[in-house]
């Protein structure tokens, strides 16, 4: 276990204890918190880096996590452990302090991400193959429940997307092949109850829970529009919003699906990536009507608000994935275009947003920018970096 004595005591005792503690790893000799730590995925190598956003440095590299293409991460609520969901179905619990794998299970053959429950006790994985949601004990990674998805037209359980945590010990998810939204009540995680909403729209591709935990929104690939569920009033059913927002316009080919999780809320406005359009949609959440569109340099993949919500940063699908644009949320104008490197896959703000970390996969680097001056602060080498996840997510709903 971690030493419990204080730093002062340790310092006073250091000389005499020196020989006695030599077996303890160097990293364990110094007490520290995890609030400024995070994970950078090295997708091709099956490794993660543990990074420090105060030092702006990589602390450790941990390997053996399998296929990490499209890997995503949630954190234990004490911010000590990262749960890494790999494409190959691997679920790996990484100890950020000891900088090693704590536990690892193979829970599916094709997985796309996960979530952690409101109380931090249950980790949920959303899977493509076999399609469904699996619930695990956050401590032991013991399987608690296997919620199999509705079979699609081909008889195969639907792929599950857009998994998110919600208040009341619930998880939300969307079914790509069958056009459903599920509310999974995991208050008793060994016997979860599922409320199913059918016919929400064609091919939901991702979903999100708003930061206040009230709304679940699923983006639709198969038609223009989004599906909205009020979690305060699920009895009112799923509503369509921004219906046919691109009416009469030709959609562009989509070379990468947009992501909704980690989305952008500024005041009462949500900034959402449009599908098949070089636009960010601005929606007034008071009535869920479109109020503006911001023309951008490509098809948005992530649109993420700086924590103070003054800026929204956007990255783009292939072939425009060398750029990042910054939208001023007050004027709704693009105020900066950056070219951090080749194949920008993700960006993550520090907990209060003075800096943003951006991964450039094909340049094998992570670049940290000052969000006030847009000056690059530091470049960290990384092997095909993709997702960047900071422990501040542990305290945020829908992350």
């Amino acid at each position, binding site marked *: 276990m971690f030493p419990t004595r204080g730093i002062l005591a340790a310092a006073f005792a250091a000389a005499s204890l020196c020989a006695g503690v030599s077996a303890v790893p160097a990293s364990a000799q110094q007490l520290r918190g995890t609030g400024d730590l995070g994970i950078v995925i090295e*997708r*091709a190598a099956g490794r993660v880096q543990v990074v420090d956003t105060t030092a702006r440095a990589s602390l450790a590299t941990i390997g053996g996590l399998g*296929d990490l*293409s*499209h890997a995503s991460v949630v954190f234990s609520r004490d911010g000590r452990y990262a749960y890494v969901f790999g*494409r*190959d179905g691997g679920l790996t619990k990484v100890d950020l302090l000891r900088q090693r794998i704590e536990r690892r299970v193979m829970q599916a*053959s*094709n997985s*796309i991400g996960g979530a952690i429950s409101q109380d931090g006790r249950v980790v949920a994985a959303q899977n*493509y*193959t076999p399609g469904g949601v699996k619930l695990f004990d956050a401590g032991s990674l013991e399987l608690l429940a296997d919620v199999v998805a509705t079979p699609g037209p081909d008889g195969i359980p639907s*792929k599950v*997307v857009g998994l998110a945590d919600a208040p009341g010990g619930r998880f939300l998810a969307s079914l*790509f092949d069958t056009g459903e939204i599920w509310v999974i009540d995991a208050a008793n995680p060994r016997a979860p109850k599922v409320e199913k909403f059918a016919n929400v729209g064609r*091919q939901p*591709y991702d979903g999100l829970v708003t930061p206040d935990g009230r709304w679940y929104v699923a983006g639709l*690939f198969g038609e223009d529009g989004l599906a909205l569920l009020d979690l305060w009033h699920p009895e009112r059913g799923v509503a369509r919003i921004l219906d046919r927002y691109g009416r009469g316009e030709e959609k562009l*080919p*989509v*070379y*990468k*699906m947009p992501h909704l999780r980690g989305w952008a809320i500024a005041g009462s406005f949500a900034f959402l990536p449009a599908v098949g359009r070089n636009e960010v949609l601005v929606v007034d959440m008071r009535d869920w009507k479109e109020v503006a569109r911001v023309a951008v340099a490509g098809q948005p993949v992530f649109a993420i608000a700086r924590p103070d919500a003054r800026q929204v940063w956007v990255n783009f699908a*292939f*072939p425009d994935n060398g750029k990042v644009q910054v939208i001023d949320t007050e004027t709704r104008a693009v105020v900066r275009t950056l070219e951090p490197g080749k*194949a920008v896959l993700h960006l993550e703000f520090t907990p209060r947003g003075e800096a943003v970390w951006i991964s450039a*996969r*094909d340049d094998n680097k992570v670049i940290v920018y000052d969000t006030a001056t847009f000056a690059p602060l530091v470049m960290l080498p990384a092997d095909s970096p993709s997702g960047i996840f900071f422990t501040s997510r542990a305290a945020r709903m829908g992350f």
Partner: protein
Amino acid sequence: MVPAAALALAALAALASSAAASGATDDGTVTLADATSAAAPQPARQRELLHLLKQDCGSCHGMRLTGGLGPALTPEALRTRPAESLVATIVSGRPGTAMPPWRRFLSEAEAEWLVARMLMGDVDVPH
């Protein structure tokens, strides 16, 4: 990777026999036999194409082509699909699905070369 290699060989054999059976096409398209030899892109372009396959096709089909939102593109998964239809899918996309047309980024001949490599399971990007 022994089973994969064995399957790749089987796929290659199937490819060769189907090419032999269909013979030279009369509409001027390059046959698959050509795609693996004479019409092969230059090495630098081969790397680009394999990188495109791994990273950008991989967005939906998985970096290891084991499937994602899109279906798996492993030799096993593609075994029953005619190569010509795979080439057409890459170049023109599949309307009604999430598969977009890629003709902006590669030629039909390059798609044929790529399909041949996929059917063999030989898709690693050379260093």
